[in-house]
């Protein structure tokens, strides 16, 4: 409350001050208490009362393919509603840099913007994202989405974004290479099987690529596969538990078996390795299909997919890698929020729109109700007739949730660093996960579980 006091004094001087001018404004100006974000829960009170209170124009931000997918739904939405939805396409990191500045400074953010699940809690934690709990409840759409999506979007019981696409995992493999060297994709059930099959390949062909710089991504999908959670419900760091250790050991085993290439992801070398078939398989997620189609058109028809191997025999084989959502910035006016929500609901919670975006841009719907659609049973030429979408849909429903938090970036950075040291032979898997946990605990003021 010192702010208000100073404001009073400065108010007498008449020209300059800190705190709220006049101090009359009811909002809680200078709370220094704790991180909870209860102060702005009043926002969704008036709900969506259909039309009258909505802004006629909103901005929507997204990057790359996702932005172009939104342009499809925006066009449809505009034709059915008297409103303009201006979708702006950005580069990925360009958009993040800009959105973060806008959110942190409380000005300039668009009504609706894309939010990756992995960024969810750290964005939400800044208190700059509008809660959508009431809207989602009123629309009754929560059960229509795959359950694994919600955990990352929920903080202290409030939901802050609507799920868009999801990244059910699978291993892509080159059929001709597997056949040539007698590898049997059906026979791979565990990572041990995977390694064993991989050893059948000649020296100049690698079973998979284990890129440095992406180890935290690999670790996370396998950790999630085991239903691992990086933090306990009560907040303690838990990335040095049995599951994490098992994953670290697995990564080391793959690496030590000498079946992994080390090619930086998304580079030309990386693309050409899959194009030439010097790397035979690619553990990834549903969204990879679009990239492979676009970048390596010559390989179409030579791909197959199987579920990612289990860590132990009989263990789970479903996980999730990536996926996005749409959020509303808390700083925009109420009428824009309402219009934003209306557009979001239309784009993401209707099967027609989700399927249109999937069809055109390969964004795998998080909307579970779409999975009944016949397109999921289609035999696809790209996969030599395999109905791969059905497999992805199955994985999407089985994938466990994951407790992303505002400290997720710290976890990724620490795991990345320590696993790289492990791979370099500087430390054991036990030491790696322990060191990562300690780093996260120290940097985030948390305790170890």
């Amino acid at each position: 409350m010192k702010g208000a006091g100073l404001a009073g004094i400065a108010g007498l001087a008449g020209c300059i001050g800190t705190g709220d001018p006049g101090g009359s404004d009811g909002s809680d100006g200078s709370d220094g208490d704790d991180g909870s974000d209860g102060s702005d829960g009043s926002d969704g009170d008036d709900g969506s009362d259909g039309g009258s209170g909505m802004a006629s124009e909103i901005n929507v931000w997204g990057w790359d393919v996702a932005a172009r997918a939104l342009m499809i739904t925006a066009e449809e939405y505009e034709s059915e509603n008297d409103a303009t939805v201006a979708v702006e396409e950005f580069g990925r990191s360009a958009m993040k840099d800009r959105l973060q500045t806008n959110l942190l400074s409380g000005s300039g953010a668009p009504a609706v913007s894309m939010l990756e699940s992995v960024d969810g809690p750290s964005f939400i934690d800044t208190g700059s994202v509008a809660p959508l709990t009431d809207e989602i409840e009123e629309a009754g759409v929560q059960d229509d989405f795959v359950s694994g999506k919600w955990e990352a979007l929920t903080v202290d019981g409030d939901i802050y974004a609507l799920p868009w696409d999801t990244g059910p995992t699978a291993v892509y493999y080159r059929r001709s290479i597997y056949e040539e060297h007698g590898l049997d994709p059906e026979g791979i059930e565990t990572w041990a099987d995977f390694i064993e099959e991989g050893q059948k390949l000649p020296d100049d062909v690698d079973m998979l690529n284990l890129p440095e710089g992406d180890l935290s991504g690999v670790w996370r999908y396998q950790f999630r596969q085991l239903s691992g959670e990086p933090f306990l419900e009560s907040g303690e760091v838990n990335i040095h538990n049995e599951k994490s250790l098992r994953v670290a050991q697995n990564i080391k085993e793959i690496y030590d078996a000498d079946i992994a290439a080390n090619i930086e992801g998304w580079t030309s070398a990386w693309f050409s390795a899959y194009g030439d078939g010097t790397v035979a398989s690619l553990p990834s997620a549903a969204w990879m299909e679009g990239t492979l189609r676009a970048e390596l058109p010559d390989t179409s028809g030579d791909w197959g997919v199987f579920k990612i191997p289990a860590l132990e025999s009989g263990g789970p084989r479903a996980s999730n890698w990536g996926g996005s959502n749409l959020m509303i910035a808390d700083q925009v006016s109420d009428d824009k929020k309402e219009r934003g929500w209306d557009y979001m609901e239309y784009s993401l919670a209707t099967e027609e729109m989700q399927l249109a975006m999937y069809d055109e841009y390969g964004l795998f719907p998080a909307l579970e109700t779409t999975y009944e659609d016949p397109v999921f049973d289609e035999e696809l030429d790209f996969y030599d007739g395999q109905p791969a979408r059905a497999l992805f849909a199955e994985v999407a429903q089985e994938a466990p949730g994951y407790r992303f938090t505002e400290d997720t970036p710290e976890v990724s950075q620490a795991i990345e660093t320590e696993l790289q040291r492990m791979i370099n032979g500087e430390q054991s898997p036990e030491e790696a996960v322990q060191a990562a946990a300690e780093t996260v605990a120290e940097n985030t003021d948390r305790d170890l579980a």
Partner: protein
Amino acid sequence: MATSDETDDRIGQAYRRRVRTTVRTAARKFRRAARPLWDRFRFARQDLTAATPTLPRVAYIFIAPFFLLFSVFLAFPVFYTLYLSFFEYQGVGQGSLFWVDLGPVYLEIPKIARLDFVGLGNYARLLGNDLFWQSMFNTSYILVIQVPLMIGLALALALALNASFLRLKGVFRTAIALPVSANLVAYSTVFLLLFNEQLGFLNYVLAGVGLGPVPWLTDGFWARNTIIAAVTWRWTGYNMIILLAGLQTIPQQLYEAAEIDGANRWEKFRYVTLPQLKPVFLFVVVLSTIGTFKLFAEPYVITGGGPTNSTITIVQYIYRQAFVNFNLGYASALTVVFVAVVSAFSVAQIKIGGED
């Protein structure tokens, strides 16, 4: 043939003689011109002492625009950063932090953040943070190798391009300075390809002479050197331009006078060029040091700070704290420390550089 050689020689001698006389007269003229100037200066200085009080006012007018612009645009960000460094960022705030009401102009800075006062906590935290020290080490390593290397090359190039016999100066100058105008995204993409361990052009060449392959991007030690190579490639020409401009303000007569005294190439460099170039050279050293301390874009795009954080720089670390982890208070404290350290470094360089 013989006759023509002879003629050439005779013309050559005549030419040399003429040059020699020109040089001598020029030097004499210079000395003669300088002497009365010097005398006049000595007289004037006495007069000037009386007039001095009016001069500072002129000086203040000359530097006023900087302060005007600074206080309007940069003072707030700078002091806000200092202020934030004593707090822990809790989230976006509401209401107003600071306002100015001048009647017609009303300016209000909203309270953008909910903050917890932590005193010097952020500063204590950075001292104990491994990654902070790692980024310090990386930056220092790059600094110690990159700055001397680049300035050495830039100076050699500037001297070469200032040599009277060199033809096509404009072409060379432009070619060497062009890398600095290459857009960062594009040039880092090219460097990523050049330095790729398996498929890169550089390892391809090295393999041709039986070396390598060098893990340019995947090994910590080499990755740092790759960053050094990239930065040096981009900025050498830039520094060369500045040094060249400095060389060109050196009065030609000084060289002529030195030649008359029989100075050789090295002596001319040592006793004319170096002392005359010193202020500009110092500028280049200080500027490059600061520039490398502030290194951000190259490691951000080329290596992303990896592998195992072996190329993460201080500014990149701070950026990560602010923009990825949302630790605005901590990032501000880091910024304050960073500015203090680098400023101290620069001042020390200027003092050691024998300013004044």
